[in-house]
């Protein structure tokens, strides 16, 4: 007999329920069966539901949720790779957990798939933006403002504040602005301040990146 499509496992964060391959009805049936046999054991537990690549719509997800809740088990988060499933989870207001990743292994950053945030106003002195992905500003970043981004920073305006791109240690991150005159510029583990003659607006779009161990600016074409 092949291994069960439903795996229930205890972790330090609570229960992990993994729904594997196979026809949906069979999975549901199997889950119900397992819960009926062992529910008292899992009662009141918080559950992370791992759905892998499987595409599940909102109704199907609600079936699973109802099933768990009827056994007094409460799904606290969803792990899913399929976009449909994520949308379904959002529809049911279930938080989506980060897909579990092996510890100790350097995470390969997939730049294209990083999420970004768009800020459509001027960032003024004392205002700080922190975002794990890209940050795009349509407006100025005034002196005294700070942007910390996990990936790239693009400013359609004047950049006069402090920017840290690739703040989680990504030395491939870039910073560009229509007028790149930051108080201080940080990319990954590098830090630079513009030469003094650069401190007034250049009115040239420029891009900053790390090249041979230092931050360099070049025309943004």
């Amino acid at each position, binding site marked *: 007999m092949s291994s069960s499509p439903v795996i229930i496992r205890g972790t330090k964060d609570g229960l992990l329920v993994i729904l594997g391959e196979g026809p949906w009805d069979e999975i549901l049936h199997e889950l119900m069966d397992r819960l009926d046999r062992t529910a008292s054991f899992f009662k009141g537990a918080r559950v992370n539901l791992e759905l892998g690549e499987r595409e599940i719509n909102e109704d199907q997800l609600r079936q699973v949720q109802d099933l768990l809740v009827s056994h007094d088990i409460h799904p606290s988060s969803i792990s899913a790779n399929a976009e449909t499933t994520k949308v379904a989870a959002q529809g049911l207001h279930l938080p989506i957990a980060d897909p579990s990743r092996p510890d100790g292994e350097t995470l390969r950053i997939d730049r294209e798939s990083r999420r970004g945030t768009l800020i459509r106003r001027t960032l003024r002195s004392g205002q700080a933006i922190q975002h794990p992905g890209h940050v795009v500003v349509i407006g*100025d970043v005034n002196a005294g403002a700070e942007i910390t981004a996990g990936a790239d920073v693009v400013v359609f305006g004047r950049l006069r504040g402090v920017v840290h791109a690739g703040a989680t240690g990504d030395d491939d991150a870039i910073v560009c602005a229509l007028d790149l005159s930051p108080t201080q510029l940080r990319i990954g583990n590098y830090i630079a301040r513009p030469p003094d003659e650069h401190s007034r607006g250049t009115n040239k779009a420029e891009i900053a990146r790390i090249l041979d161990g230092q931050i360099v600016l070049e025309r943004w074409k």
Partner: protein
Amino acid sequence: MTTRVVTITSGKGGVGKTTTTANLAASLAQAGKRVVAIDADIGLRNLDVVLGLENRIVYDIVDVVEGRCRLRQALIRDKRLPDLNLLPAAQTRDKSAVRPDQMIHLVEQLYNDFDFVLIDSPAGIEQGFRNAIAPAKEILIVTTPEVSAVRDADRIIGLIEAEGKGPGRLILNRIKPDLVKRGDMLDTHDVLDILAIELIGIVPEDESIVVSTNKGVPIVMNGATPAGVAYRNIARRLLGEEVPFQVLKTTHPGLLDRLFRFARGQG
């Protein structure tokens, strides 16, 4: 008739908030508007001195908030300008004596009986500032053409925007045309470039301000001094008049053009 509640603030100290409040209040009263000027700088009150009303204080804003008197008893009417009233700050207390909700309640009691309530904010971004902007419907930001003052004004504009009270309008105070001409001072264009908000007035550096402040007579009551004219123009712009910006003496060519361009562009 709705009452316009205007807070004058700056972030940095010493840029001319109190002088501006006093002169705008006096100008508006001269124009026949019923005005209350509120000094929100509790513990460091000055507006009464600048308006020359210090010796008439009996009750202050803290007395009103703590119920020791009625609001009307604390208002000091200026004998020179009967439409001008002052609600003085307390000198023996500090900013924590009043809360933002109490300020809102207090200003609401002035609705309908007055055309303008001008609130003189203390420097800083702490509770005194919060108290001053809580009841505001309009905000004027005063700055001088110095990097530190402009930086603080930028911070203040950010805080005001976060409160949902709009970016406010800018008064550029103490411009020295000679220094600007030599390129040793930020000019109007530089400041507006950074702050990107609407300009409502430019006030030139004027020695007669010192004299008028020491005498307790707002400069707008004192003939045609450059600063007095500038403050009157701001008051007229507040009232919705289109007043062209003054030609400051010894301006270098192009300043005025750029200034107009900005005034229009940001307006």
